[in-house]
């Protein structure tokens, strides 16, 4: 499935770390797509990373179910407090439940506009529950939790 897509560009080697099998890289295309959509502050792109009934859970009473709810939530975030922000993260765990379901864990966080380092208050531990639908990996569930004592961000 991977030809000359962004999933096998050599500059991504550092991103993949130890998760270098084709299968692992395919599953990791989900966070890569989301990071790319976020960098454009593209709410539709973020929502489209999810399955139709995908779930987004963030610290601070955010529970969004379905692409429509996720789209509205992200559009408001990019119009307001998260305008101009980016997001980053590196995989620390990739586990396949079977050929159609995988769990990814990443350590990352939001990048304030113009920043390349994550501020301690924005650091998160994320779990990505990804499923393969019609040959494409999608997010069935995304949850993040504060990482480190200084991680105070609540949405």
């Amino acid at each position: 499935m991977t030809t000359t897509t962004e999933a096998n560009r050599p500059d991504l080697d550092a991103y993949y770390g130890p998760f270098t099998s084709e299968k692992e890289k395919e599953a990791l295309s989900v966070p890569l797509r989301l990071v790319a959509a976020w960098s454009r502050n593209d709410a539709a792109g973020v929502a489209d990373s999810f399955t139709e009934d995908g779930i987004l859970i963030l610290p601070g009473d955010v529970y969004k179910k379905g692409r429509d709810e996720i789209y509205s939530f992200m559009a408001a975030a990019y119009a307001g407090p998260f305008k101009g922000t980016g997001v980053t993260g590196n995989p620390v765990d990739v586990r396949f439940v079977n050929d159609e379901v995988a769990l990814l864990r990443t350590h990352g966080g939001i990048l304030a506009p113009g920043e390349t380092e994550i501020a301690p208050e924005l650091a998160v531990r994320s779990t990505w529950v990804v499923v393969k639908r019609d040959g494409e990996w999608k997010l069935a569930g995304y949850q993040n939790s504060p990482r480190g004592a200084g991680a105070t961000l609540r949405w």
Partner: protein
Amino acid sequence: MTTKAASRWRDATEILEAARVAEDHSYYREFVSDDEKAVLAVPQLIQAAWKANDPDFFAGLFAENGSLLMGDEQLTSREEIRAFMAKGFAGPYRGAYVKGYPVSVNFLHPDVAMVVTGGGIILAGESEVAAERHIRATWIIVRQDDGRPLLLSHQSSPVTG
């Protein structure tokens, strides 16, 4: 591809009886199909393991490579979970228990469910989940060959804390 007969989850009542845990019929809310009840046996078992402050019971509900995020502590195997909870039940979690309720039950595959719950830890001496301990959790529950559900991943994040 597994056949329908081969992918059946064990009956919730049987799962709970086998663990000598009283089934809480009100726990299921609107998730009352046989398969939904089977996977919701897992959070009921986790609640029972907390109530008993029993680290072996607790860890045994996880897959061998199961993961658990407790606060900022990421555990990545049944053994790590057992050791962490043994310390916890002997220390800060002595007498503590958890209470929760299902918010969403999704089957990602005939053998894999994603459950979202709300709830939290009730420390010794408390009678309900304190506001700062209210969490939302995602559970990935996987069907074993014998139909028994095991917990592959549990992550929580603060709601009001």
